[in-house]
């Protein structure tokens, strides 16, 4: 080849090369940074990429060209083609692009890098940027155990959004194949919680149902999906019962009626809930020999909390329905009896007192009680000794404490129950007070019985067990009852009273009945292990029924009928103070108890009985003292009615 030809060829080749190269805006030839100096490229996922590899539509002439924004397919899809197809087939198809999740293109970090927009710690913001409704999704996750494990404890292996939902191929939850579909929840959760999954799958009735593809709860039904709370907290355990009860309604009802349910509801954190007895992941029907509540195993189950128990303890029916004779016949009979007693007593005295009320109101309006209320002579007569007054104060105090601490437990779902418990210092404090007051009750009963025995058998006092000064019901009481009814119905005079009227005797004797019933059953409930060491477990069920029903009987009777009989009758209005002062005006005494008055006069002992009138301070103190307790009682009475109406 000649030199000019060689030179021309080389020149042509060089020009061709130059031409070729200038047609492509390869960054080695075009310095993008010359104009785009403000763009910083800090992507750790794409450290070696050049501008053109993503900006595929940039040519040398682009300075004047109007460049359309590149689609994901045209930029990211140059390498990640199949991913784009995958996203297109997922719920994000057409909704989210690569940068919506992976962040700004010049700052895309490697997925394993914690700074990446799709790293576990940043996913919440990335996904949450769109998925913030309902707030429970993000807020719930952050407040739940997974969120806390990740962001508070720094465990980067704790599950974040993509661990459950997937990354590129996120399917709708309703789709059967989605990892987050209801039926797939056990395997999804079980991929980390392997041991629990094995237990649940093989050793729980719910797991068996799931394996057989039957309907039943899976992980998310009990634990929720986003706001997964610590299941060992009081709140979670308390809410758990409601959760189980969503399907097992009748068991929830009987659980709520039991001591465990009542106390748990009011804050007893150690109280047993469903999972404590049935185990959380190995729950089986009671007739399965492997079940924690099978008769052979239930002693060990109860023994987790109750020390030193015998097999009889474990035969106590936790889910007892006293109203069902098939459940346990003895319990049913007791319930039937107590309920009949309640209805009978309340009906009897209810009618009696309503009739009395209207007669007394009419009597007051007619002025029938004016003379005794005026009490012109200013003379007062003793009715109670100091020890009687003190005893009554002890009775009031212990009774009201028992009522205040006991009624919220019985009516635990009443609107006022939790507030009252809180005022008393919480459930533990309440139980303590209740037991102290119970000891006080046994105490005064014992003191009184000893006193009666001393008076009768040591001092040889006459007339204690029969006669006008005795509390024993006698024929006159029957006559007086009917006489009173006639009087209420304007068909006769008020029967002449003696030292104790029939309703006062009832008040007195009912305490023996009440303290015996409620006291003994209370001891059973306080020392269940002891009593079941020689008695069968159903006696605890019986004790529960008696204690609960007698409590209603006692408090209801005192707050409504006793208060009316002795303190709030219209003729005594505003309040009969005799039991606090120990004395009443002579006129009143003559009017109410003419027979006793006559007997005192005939025996010539009237002067012994006449006492100084109380001074203003004593009367004021008696009113104050009495009012406080009456008001507490009336409030509790209202609470009882409120609870019964809203049950």
């Amino acid at each position: 080849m000649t030199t000019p030809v060689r030179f021309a060829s080389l020149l042509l080749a060089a020009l061709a090369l130059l031409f070729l190269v200038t047609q492509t805006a390869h960054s080695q030839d075009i310095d993008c940074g010359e104009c785009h100096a403000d763009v910083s490229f800090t992507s750790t996922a794409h450290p070696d990429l050049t501008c053109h590899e993503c900006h595929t539509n940039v040519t040398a002439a682009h300075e004047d060209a109007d460049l359309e924004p590149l689609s994901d397919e045209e930029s990211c899809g140059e390498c990640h083609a199949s991913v784009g197809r995958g996203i297109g087939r997922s719920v994000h198809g057409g909704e989210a692009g690569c940068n919506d999740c992976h962040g700004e293109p010049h700052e895309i970090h490697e997925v394993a890098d914690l700074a990446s927009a799709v790293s576990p710690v940043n996913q919440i913001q990335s996904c949450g940027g769109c998925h913030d409704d309902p707030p429970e999704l993000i807020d719930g996750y952050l407040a739940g155990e997974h969120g806390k494990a990740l962001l508070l404890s720094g465990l980067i292996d704790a599950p974040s959004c993509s661990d459950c939902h997937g990354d590129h191929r996120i399917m709708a939850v309703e789709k059967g194949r989605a990892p987050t579909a209801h039926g797939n929840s056990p395997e999804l959760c079980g991929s980390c919680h392997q041991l629990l999954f094995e237990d649940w799958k093989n050793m729980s009735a719910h797991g068996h149902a799931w394996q057989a593809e039957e309907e039943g709860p899976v992980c998310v039904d009990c634990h929720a999906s986003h706001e997964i709370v610590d299941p060992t907290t009081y709140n979670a355990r308390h809410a758990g019962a409601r959760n189980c009860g969503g399907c097992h309604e009748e068991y929830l009802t009987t659980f709520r009626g039991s001591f465990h349910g009542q106390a748990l509801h009011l804050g007893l954190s150690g109280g047993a809930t469903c999972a404590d007895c049935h185990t959380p992941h190995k729950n089986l029907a009671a007739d399965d020999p492997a079940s924690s509540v099978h008769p052979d195993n239930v002693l060990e189950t109860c023994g987790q909390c109750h020390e030193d128990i015998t097999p009889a303890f474990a035969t106590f029916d936790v889910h007892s329905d006293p109203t069902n004779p098939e459940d346990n016949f003895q319990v049913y009979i007791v319930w039937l009896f107590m309920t009949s007693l309640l209805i009978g007593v309340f009906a009897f005295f209810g009618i009696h007192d309503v009739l009395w009320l209207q007669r007394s109101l009419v009597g007051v309006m007619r002025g029938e009680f004016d003379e005794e209320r005026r009490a012109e002579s200013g003379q007062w007569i003793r009715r109670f000794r100091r020890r009687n007054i003190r005893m009554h104060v002890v009775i009031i105090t212990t009774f009201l404490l028992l009522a205040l601490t006991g009624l919220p437990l019985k009516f635990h779902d009443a609107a006022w129950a939790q507030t009252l418990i809180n005022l008393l210092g919480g459930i533990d404090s309440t139980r303590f007070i209740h037991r102290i007051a119970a000891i006080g009750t046994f105490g005064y009963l014992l003191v009184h019985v000893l006193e009666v025995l001393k008076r009768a058998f040591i001092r040889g006092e006459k007339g204690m067990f029969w006669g006008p000064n005795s509390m024993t019901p006698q024929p006159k009481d029957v006559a007086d009852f009917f006489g009173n009814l006639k009087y209420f119905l304007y068909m006769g005079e008020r029967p002449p009273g003696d030292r104790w009227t029939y309703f006062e005797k009832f008040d007195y004797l009912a305490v023996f009945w009440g303290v015996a019933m409620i006291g003994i059953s209370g001891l059973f409930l306080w020392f269940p292990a002891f009593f079941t060491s020689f008695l069968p477990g159903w006696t605890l069920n019986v004790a529960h029924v008696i204690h609960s029903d007698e409590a209603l009987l006692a408090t209801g009777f005192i707050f409504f009928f006793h208060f009316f009989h002795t303190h709030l009758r219209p003729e005594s209005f505003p309040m009969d103070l005799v039991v606090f002062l120990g004395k009443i005006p002579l006129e009143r005494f003559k009017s109410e108890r003419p027979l006793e008055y006559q007997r005192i006069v005939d025996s010539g002992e009237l002067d012994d009985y006449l006492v100084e009138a109380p001074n203003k301070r004593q009367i004021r103190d008696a009113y104050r003292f009495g009012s406080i307790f009456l008001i507490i009682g009336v409030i509790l009475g209202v609470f009882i009615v409120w609870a019964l109406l809203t049950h």
Partner: protein
Amino acid sequence: MKRIFLFVLSALALGIPALASANVDALMQECNGCHGDNGVSQSSDVPTIAGLAEFVHVDALFIYQDEARPCAESEYRQGDTSRPATSMCAIAAELSEDDIDALAAAYAALPYVKAKQDFDADKAAAGKDLHDQHCDRCHSEEGTNPDDEAGMLGGQQMGYLRDTFAAYADGSREQPGKMQEKLEALSADDVEALVHYYGSVQ
């Protein structure tokens, strides 16, 4: 993250026989008629499909449904070989989305078994250099890492690999733009070297 996700998917796959109907087993019997027992191919022109990433399976089956990939007709290789010849497009057309998911999960959970094949050592050595330089970034660990969610290359049937390279070359099969650039730069000898390299991974 990916590993956890894949583990989840594998766990799901393990659960499929328990959960899904016998349908998946029946489908797999069909697939294994060409792709071999447990998805491990015994024929040079048919790929091993066991152990590939679930995502790759799903993607492939959907692409076959769209007929966006060559689907040659083929006789059944084992089992009842009297069955009429079929193609991947025909098979994919019969599959529902759930079937595709189920199959993908099932095969992804099976172990990837590298084929025992004859290869030329010199060509394989040249192929290794090419692979490390151009392909390893997306087909890591000699092209046997399912986490890459790209096709398995190392240990794959060599006849199938040759057919695939040809399909990419003549444009009858789509590929990512980046990959296209690299493949277009390869000569026929380079392609053959790569095939022998992948065949040498055993």
